[in-house]
């Protein structure tokens, strides 16, 4: 690595003040600091301690955590392709080849567009290139279907970087998650290609002479099926045992490139948590919130449909919830208070549902299926934990996470137009995160003031 550093050192004078490429200093600096930690050391004044784990190192950790989903995604695209075209005997290498042929262009387009815009803005505005796009550029392809037209990827990336980030002042200033902004843009601008009710199995194109799908291939994602008539219809898929819990956990199902596999997302979560880059509170609370909401919906369905438990249960449920809420307000302190507070809110919502007698087929879907269907795990691990747009306080993180989980299931169950809810739930909570923080900090101040004795 010494020789590489020498090359950079040799070029440095050209980019510094007075050099011939002075204008492009920040582009140079971006590449240099990406490879080598800058020589900055803790200054004599001030109490901050500078260590080598700067933003770029953190972002690289996230990319490493994303690699399992990318590799699995590439394989899965190929696997789905061969399943749909009836060539199940294909070797693993074939699958990877087809997958790479479909996926890598999307990755390249995403990075090229996004980094091009980043560098342009950095040069015009004379600020250092922000590292944020290293991760966003990888996240964007992973939440795109393999069949997405490349111009749409480029358009969405440009939109996300300019409108989602640079308008607000660059990395660290954005309100919404950049990658999700890209997907939301396509979701509303070109719903035909990405809305998530049909599967996006890559059939190939004339270039490599691909064949047509097998007879009776019916394209619908588990989420769309569950929305139509509950989980019972899973067995009607053309490949009858495709949508089992195990398959959905492993991710051997059609879907966006990186998001099908809950297992790979969990491996990524482990990397993020061990390195301290991602917040375990958010990951845990998103899963917890979704599971609880799913479970509560099962409960509502059971009572409202089978009617085995009557008004007594409903009233007891409501009273118990309100007691829980009051106890929480009075006696419970710290992070637990935030958790129980949000849970009590969910329970009150459930009580309202019970009294209103609401019921839909989707409510029957067992709670654990909500965790493995669609992009739940991917969103929880890589999107919700985005340190810029998430809540910053510990209590806030619990509220933020549980709300994302609960809203995801809520949108899935009650909104027929949007099969998947995690994207909209995270974007919504992104907007609320600063508000949550404000109230957490205010409560903190109030508590400490009340202890003050002067």
């Amino acid at each position: 690595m010494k020789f590489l550093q020498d090359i950079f050192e040799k070029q440095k004078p050209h980019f510094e003040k007075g050099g011939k490429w002075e204008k492009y200093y920040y582009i140079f600096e971006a590449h240099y600091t990406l490879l080598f930690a800058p020589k900055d050391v803790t200054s004599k004044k001030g109490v901050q301690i500078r260590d080598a784990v700067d933003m770029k190192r953190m972002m690289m950790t996230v990319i490493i955590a994303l690699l399992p989903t990318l590799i699995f995604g590439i394989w899965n695209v190929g696997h789905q392709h061969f399943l749909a075209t009836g060539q199940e005997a294909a070797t693993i290498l074939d699958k990877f080849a087809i997958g790479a042929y479909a996926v890598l262009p999307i990755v390249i387009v995403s990075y090229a567009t996004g980094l091009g815009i980043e560098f342009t803005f950095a040069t015009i505005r004379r600020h250092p290139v922000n590292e944020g796009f290293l991760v966003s550029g990888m996240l964007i392809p992973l939440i795109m279907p393999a069949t997405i037209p490349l111009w749409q990827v480029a358009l969405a990336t440009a939109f996300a970087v300019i409108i989602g980030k640079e308008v607000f002042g660059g990395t660290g200033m954005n309100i919404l998650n950049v990658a999700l902004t890209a997907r939301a843009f396509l979701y509303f601008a070109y719903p035909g290609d990405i809305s998530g009710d049909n599967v996006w199995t890559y059939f190939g194109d004339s270039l490599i002479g691909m064949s047509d799908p097998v007879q009776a291939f019916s394209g619908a994602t588990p989420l769309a099926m569950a929305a139509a008539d509950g989980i019972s219809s899973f067995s009607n898929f053309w490949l009858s045992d495709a949508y089992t819990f195990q398959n959905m956990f492993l991710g051997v199902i059609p879907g966006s490139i990186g998001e099908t596999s809950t297992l790979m997302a969990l491996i990524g979560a482990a990397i993020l948590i061990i390195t301290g880059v991602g917040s375990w509170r958010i990951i845990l609370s998103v899963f917890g919130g979704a599971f609880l909401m799913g479970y509560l919906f099962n409960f509502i369905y059971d009572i409202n449909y089978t009617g085995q438990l009557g008004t007594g249960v409903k009233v007891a449920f409501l009273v118990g919830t309100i007691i829980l809420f009051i106890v929480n307000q009075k006696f419970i302190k710290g992070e637990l208070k935030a958790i129980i507070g949000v849970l009590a809110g969910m329970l009150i919502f459930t009580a309202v549902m019970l009294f209103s007698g609401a019921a839909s087929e989707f409510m029957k879907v067992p709670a654990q299926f909500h965790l493995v269907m669609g992009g739940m795990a991917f969103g929880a691990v890589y999107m919700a934990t985005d340190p810029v747009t998430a809540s910053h306080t510990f209590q806030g993180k619990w509220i933020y996470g549980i709300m994302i989980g609960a809203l995801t299931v809520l949108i899935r169950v009650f909104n027929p137009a949007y099969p998947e809810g995690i994207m909209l739930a995270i974007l919504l909570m992104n907007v609320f995160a600063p508000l949550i923080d404000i109230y957490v900090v205010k409560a903190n101040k109030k508590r400490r003031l009340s202890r003050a004795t002067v």
Partner: protein
Amino acid sequence: MSTETTEVQSEVKEPKKVSEPLLSKRRKQILSDPLNEDNPITVQVLGICSALAVTVKLQPTLIMSIAVIFVIVFSNLIISLMRNLIPTRVRIIVQLAVIASLVTIVSEVLKAYSYPMYKVLGAFVGLIITNCIVMGRLEAFAMGNKPYDSLLDGFGSGFGYAWIILTVAFFRELLGSGSIFNFKVFEELGIAYQANSMMVDSVGAFIILGILIWVQRYVTGYVEN
């Protein structure tokens, strides 16, 4: 020293007030300020609702612009003419009566001569009554200025409003429907264009308006104070 004395002398020499030229520097400014530096939509952020609602296509937007220019110019003129007669306590209701009369005229003309357009725009034309730009100009300008100045101010604000919504409509129609004034641009050019359905939603208007504000503030160096 010497300049001061000459100034005093000149003042003494001409006690009679010379009438201001028809387009003096001050009056030009009244006319041009609302077009850019003090634009009713992008700087004062008024009249957003109609900018979101009517800008899906260029044609209704053009009609809407003409209607608003008409209403704003004449209401400014009328209010300015009778500004000394209006008791302050009832001025809002007088202003509303004037605007409502003018809007009714626009609405009836539209109904008589362009019924299909009336069907598209009817509700929004009626809502010009509540357009903050019109009310704002009457309150802020016409109540305290002479008729001719008010007329100019009306034109300035009206065109300031018009060019913004026409720009928004241009991009929304081009990107959302692939056409300009219902002329299918991309089809004629032989390009297969996939319409961007976000631009048909009012979300698209927000985005275009936001970009316009961004570009404008970058160019003029406007800072909120």
